[in-house]
């Protein structure tokens, strides 16, 4: 077997580690991998162009930016902060746990586009988490502020990933079904999606307790 195409993977790892421009790293890796895999350089460029074009739908979500930007211009983030600052019982930990539940349940019902980093995390969840953290821990250092934001983004990811597979009509479930079918095992999507529930519960318990622990840790530094 020809193991040379793996050099392309090594290139990606090294490139990311050395923090070169990721677009450059990825394009170079594609060219190197393709050529080492025995393809003609022109054929690699063609494959890259075709795949880039076929995946345009991924970048379509940027059309939300004009609306979000317009609302930010009129104080959306500030309003989100005020709203949370007013709620006595809203701590950052509880707020993010609530968002985690919300994200897991909506994703499990097939509504995966209801959250997301451009649509909800930047304009709403992150500023709300920051405001809640400030309310209970006074001013945050830059480091702590960044960590709160990063946790808000992480909560969106965990909620989505470990909620969506409970929904049976989701791409990953259909992929599992397809792979098993080609190997002679006929399964229904529902048979698969119920087995996503135990992991979903673990994900909630683990990430939820990490959020609450993070909140306590922020507090313990101050008091």
């Amino acid at each position, binding site marked *: 077997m020809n193991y040379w195409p793996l050099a392309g993977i090594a290139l990606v790892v090294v490139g990311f580690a050395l923090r070169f421009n990721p677009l*450059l790293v*990825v394009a170079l890796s594609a060219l190197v*991998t393709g050529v080492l895999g025995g393809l003609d350089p022109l054929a690699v460029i063609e494959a890259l162009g075709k795949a880039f074009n076929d995946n345009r739908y991924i970048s379509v979500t940027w059309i939300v930016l004009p609306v979000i930007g*317009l609302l930010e*211009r009129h104080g959306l983030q500030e309003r989100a902060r*005020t709203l949370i600052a007013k709620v006595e019982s809203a701590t950052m930990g509880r707020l993010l746990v609530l968002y985690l539940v919300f994200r897991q349940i909506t994703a499990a019902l097939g*509504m995966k586009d209801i959250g997301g980093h451009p649509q909800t995390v930047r304009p709403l969840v992150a500023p709300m988490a920051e405001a809640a953290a400030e309310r209970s821990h006074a001013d945050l250092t830059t480091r702590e502020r960044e960590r709160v934001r990063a946790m808000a983004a992480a909560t969106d990811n965990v909620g989505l990933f470990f909620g969506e597979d409970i929904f049976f009509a989701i791409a990953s479930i259909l992929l599992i079904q397809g792979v098993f079918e080609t190997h002679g095992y006929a399964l229904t999507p529902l048979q698969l999606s119920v*087995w996503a529930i135990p992991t979903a519960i673990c994900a909630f318990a683990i990430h939820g307790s990490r959020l609450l622990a993070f909140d306590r840790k922020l507090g313990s530094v101050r008091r």
Partner: protein
Amino acid sequence: MITLEWLYILTGIAFAAWSVLSLRDRSNGKRWGNAAFWGLLAGSFFFGSYLSDLANGVLVLALVAIAGTGQIGRSDPPTTSPAMRVALAGKLGNRLFVPALVIPVTAVAGTLLYTWTPLGESGLIEPRRETLVLLGVGVLFALVLAMVWLRPPLLAPLEEGRRLMDSISWAAILPQMLAALGGVFALAGVGEIVGDLASRVIPEGSLFLSVLVYCLGMVAFTVIMGNAFAAFPVMASAIGIPVLIVQFGGNVPVIGAIGMLAGFCGTLITPMAANFNIVPAVLLDLRDQYGVIRAQAGTALALLVCNVALIYLLAFR
């Protein structure tokens, strides 16, 4: 029928506007680079379906050349000051959330209506693309609502959009580029090689170690590809089916479903999953581009342990 192509034109219009506005922005020292980058992307959205694969490939290389040589700058279109925003937020109140919520609500309610009512039989929207198309519809609703209510300058949404887009910069197309890299990897046979390697390290006869290698293989390959979808067919045919199912008689749905979720733990810890891990770091102005990954790593590793245990305990009763 409303197809994805309509959405591409809408997106192309936004990128074309950002290109033109960048060109006119003399305060940005790198305005030519910005204009070229967003302009090429607009071209990709408008004409991608009609260009040859080679032309699309050259377009990709041009985008990479502009970004890779640092030709994109961060513009600073005039906007409201922080003090003005606090005042506006106080005046406008919680109604500010309405346009923001219109987008996801339209997408969700629309998808549900379309899927569960006879509306779906009308064939109005391209099959399987309903949610994405409805997201676009939601954006248009929200935009009209916000414009009529707030009465900002006519160009404000595009200028504010450009401010956000320029802060995200080249990272905006990284997810799409990584998907394209996946396509090239598949063509070059990377999947078969990794599957071959994985099947070699399986310890003979040990159920627990086989489960462990299956899950770690899902994680490792997902970390490399940035996507569990690429890892699953490889690991299922290398270990999941021949060893766990055939040799040890494991429960098929458990091995499939939880194996995929083990891969998702890998998605949480890799910069290759750019749209989940790198783009939000940029979007939230984090100085550490790996900040989101650091925040997630604890959850990912603990959950991986759970997934290994779940397969071991549930699949072989």
